[in-house]
């Protein structure tokens, strides 16, 4: 028993030496990489060494074009921004947490070892010893439920860093400029566009277009981030409570056509001054109404297979 204690006592300075050596290397790597350490097999092992007295956040990604990882590319800037924000922390705390990126093509072995099959993934390795020791050996995973933005990422990682990450979202100058120039342009041209703004039909068009896109399910695609078309190129999503972006357009167009034919029948055709042309238009628009309504019902049957009714089609 005593012997063991003695041995470990001997080993302690050695371990410290190893880790402080490695730490210097990591610090310099981080400094040269703008706050992010670029990992390969060897540095990964060093960074996640069991004797580490630092913690580390690691992004596993696949940025190479051949890997076709669009989310990886989307997430990369956020990651770098948060890591950059960390470099502004005083060195005393900064060197207890490292940001690192491991690309699949640099170290496929690590991916295999960790059983990772998807990217991007963010893992946080807690410090195994030292003042910030967490007592957890398993890395913590960051889930992207809040999207790929930097803000939530910094907020989450701050739970694991010695001090909170001083990340501040950059001011979106382009957006402000657009808003300001838009307002200016509006103010300058108001004299000329005032008649348009005062016309009730301008507002009618705006109103109708808004309600058509909304009833076409636009907000669904916005909130759920539904793709424009399916992966296999199909434009209509299966299932009653699901839809693609293109369906919004098709459905809004169908509703619009139907509403338009009703408007034609009630507001335009009666003012027609020639009986023959009026009759022709009445039949035309009635036909359009029936036909497009049938198309709509058919479309609905695709979405809701149990629907028992059909019209002409």
């Amino acid at each position, binding site marked *: 028993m005593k012997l063991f204690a003695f041995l470990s006592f001997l080993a302690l300075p050695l371990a410290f030496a190893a880790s402080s050596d490695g730490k210097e290397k990591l610090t310099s790597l981080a400094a040269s990489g703008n706050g992010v350490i670029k990992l390969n097999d060897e540095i990964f092992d060093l960074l996640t060494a069991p004797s580490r007295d630092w913690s580390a956040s690691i992004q596993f990604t696949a940025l190479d074009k051949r890997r076709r990882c669009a989310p990886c590319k989307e997430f990369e800037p956020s990651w770098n921004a948060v890591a950059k924000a960390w470099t502004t922390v005083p060195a005393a705390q900064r060197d207890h947490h490292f940001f690192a990126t491991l690309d699949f093509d640099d170290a496929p072995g690590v991916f295999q070892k960790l*059983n990772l099959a*998807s990217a991007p993934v963010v893992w946080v390795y807690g410090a195994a010893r030292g003042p910030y020791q967490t007592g957890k050996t398993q890395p*913590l995973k960051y*889930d992207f439920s*809040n*999207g790929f933005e930097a803000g939530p990422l910094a907020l*989450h990682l701050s*739970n694991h860093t010695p001090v909170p990450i001083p990340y501040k979202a950059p001011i979106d100058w382009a957006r402000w400029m657009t808003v300001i120039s838009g307002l200016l342009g509006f103010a300058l041209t108001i004299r000329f566009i005032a008649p348009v703004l005062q016309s*009730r039909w301008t507002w*009618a068009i705006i*109103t*109708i277009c*808004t*309600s058509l896109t*909304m*009833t*076409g*399910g636009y*907000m*669904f695609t*916005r*909130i*759920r981030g539904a793709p424009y078309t399916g992966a296999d190129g199909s434009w209509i999503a299966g299932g009653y*409570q*699901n*839809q693609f972006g293109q369906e919004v357009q098709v*459905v809004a167009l169908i509703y619009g056509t*139907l*509403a*338009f034919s*009703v*408007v*034609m*029948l*009630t*507001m*335009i*055709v*009666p*003012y*027609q*001054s*020639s*009986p*023959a*042309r*009026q*009759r*022709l238009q*009445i*039949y035309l628009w*009635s036909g359009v*109404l029936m036909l497009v*309504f049938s198309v709509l019902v058919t479309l*609905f049957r695709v*979405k*809701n297979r149990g629907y*028992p*009714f059909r*019209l002409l089609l």
Partner: protein
Amino acid sequence: MPTAYPLPTNVSPATVANTASLLRIVAFGLISAAAIASRLFAVINFESIIHEFDPWFNYRATRVLAAKGFYEFWNWFDPTAWYPLGRVVGGTIYPGLMATSGVIYNFLHYFNLPVDIRNICVLLAPGFSALTAWATYMFTAELKDPSAGLLAAAFIGIVPGYISRSVAGSYDNEAIAIFLLMFTFYCWIKALKLGSAFFGTLAAVFYFYMVAAWGGYAFITNMIPVHALVLLLMGRFSGRLYVAYSSWFRFVGFQPVRTSEHMGALGVFGLLQIVAFASLVRSHVSSKQFQNLLAISVVTMGVLGAGAFVVMTYKGWIAPWTGRFYSLWDTGYAKKYIPIIASVSEHQPTAWPSFFMDLQMLIFLFPAGVVMCFRDLRDEHVFVIIYAVVASYFAGVMVRLMLTLTPVVCVSAAVAFSTLLDTYIDPTEPEATTTEAPTAAPTTTTTTATATPDSKKIKKAVAAAQAGNSASSIASSTFNDIVSATTRKGKSSKSKGIWGADARLAVLLNAIGMLAFFVFHCTWVTSNAYSSPSVVLASTNSDGSQHIIDDYREAYYWLRQNTPQDAVVMSWWDYGYQIAGMADRPTLVDNNTWNNTHIATVGKAMSSPEEIAYPILRKHDVDYVLIIFGGLLGYSGDDINKFLWMVRIAQGVWPDEIQEPNYFTPTGEYRVDDRASDAMKNSLMYKMSYYRFAELYGNQNAVDRVRNQAIPKVGPTLDYLDEAFTSENWIVRIYQVRKEDPLGRDLKSANAFEQGKKKKRSKPVSKRRVIVN
């Protein structure tokens, strides 16, 4: 005047008017009957039973109200909910619904009609749907005429978008709220039209009722000010607007207005005072001075008001937007910060099939009706237009807000449809200005004085007509027609009408066909989709007969009969109200969802391994755990499908201990078969769901019919819980939490020891012991 079909000439105008009003009354009676009858599918197919989740609480509260009176009800503290916290019920609910049924109950009993309170609750929603039809009739009659009103009443009576929340048994706030909404709006329109303080006050009274009945009252709080504001911006300030708005606001202002929802109403009220003052000043000073004065004061007021609003919000004098309200504007907000709100299925965004399912042909008549509102554009039409835009946005964001869209869709579609019918039924034929192509119907060439004022346009049209009947010229002349129709001011002086009977017949037959299709659609949707009580399920046997699945009530009654009165039942919050209502047992969490941490505690217990969950269960005195499992029957609304929300909500409070990715396979799939992740397999929820599931299949593969995955042969074992009850179709499973081991061992090792010693001890024995206990 030439007519398309012969009209009786010997009828006096009085007879016509009397017959019309009689017909209106008869039609309205039929509409009410249809509205009520179509909501009774649920009672006929199943029985007179309260539906779903929230209604069970409302029903329970109403029983308290009916039995103990209003004061007891107001002070009601419910110790069995949110165990061990309890819940102050009186102050945390909208009592309008319960008070309404309480009044009806007492009224009927006063006349010695001993009606059961449950039947009042079940039939309240259908009854109020008839009232809603009446309010919609009045509203639409103000917009156009009584015939449009009748159509609107018929539409809202049977449209599935409203039926979905008001079938018999759906005893929820929305049951009376839509009537209140429409009637408040009607009063407002009427007040605005007449400049009547009486109707303004009436609007305020019904607004109060609405505040007491439904959280959606904020919709009215903001619709009316927005309408007033838009009228101001359109330069339509009038004494009528001033009187109507002030009399409405005078009463609304009594409320605690220090919430952001009410700030708009206050701001518009202030603005109205300024404008009223300004128009007073205008009559005294010169126009130039006035313009300067107005511009300066409006800008100053705007800046000051906005500044004050920001400062007061910042200082905390005004309560900020509530989460539910805020999530309507920033649609990502709820998912990020309040997963409980995002987890509710009726808070999901709406895909287009839902719109069509709920509104069918009304959904495309609706824009046409809005166009017609733009043509007339009186003050009340402006209201409908604003309502249309706002409600269609809201309905897109949240499925449940389809309910607020439905009335305006019905009104607007009725305006469109009745204009269509008016145009094509009207027997008068226009006076033709050309002699070309004599038609079957008699035409006349006499150009009378009425047709001349617009002769230029007519000439143009004639020229266009004579250019030929080729398709291109039709297209271009159609365009001309639209342009001339939109630029026409007010009622045209140009003669208007339809020639011939065949064209009329074509359109009318088409219209009648559409109406009939609409009725079939509504009937089908109502009977198939919206009439399930969801407490009782129905399936169809192979011979087509109906098979009732009554697992919920079976299990709740089991709890009621076999457990002590104070046994605490833990379940996911969806079932809290039902357990309280049907099993009468204390619950940890329920559908009120006011305490996120408590819900997260339940979520944590469900998603943790047994060893971690057990102390949580014991700390909260949990005796029974109830879960819903659909794997045997293929019932998809079960707890395994809701499980990720439990994980997410728990993660929100304990991010270090519960992490969503752990419940997925390494490839990111949500699986329950042998490839399921360890966290998933060890979670209490998984174990309770699939405990002894494979045994049911003997040697065959056990298949979860919801997830379509094979369940491993060797199922999970439970050390800290005993299976107490499993319902006929396995939908409800109840587990009893074991007490600590008397010898002080942890239950796992105690269990192992016992199993090693007594291998023969079979499960049913232990089950019976539980029951005796």
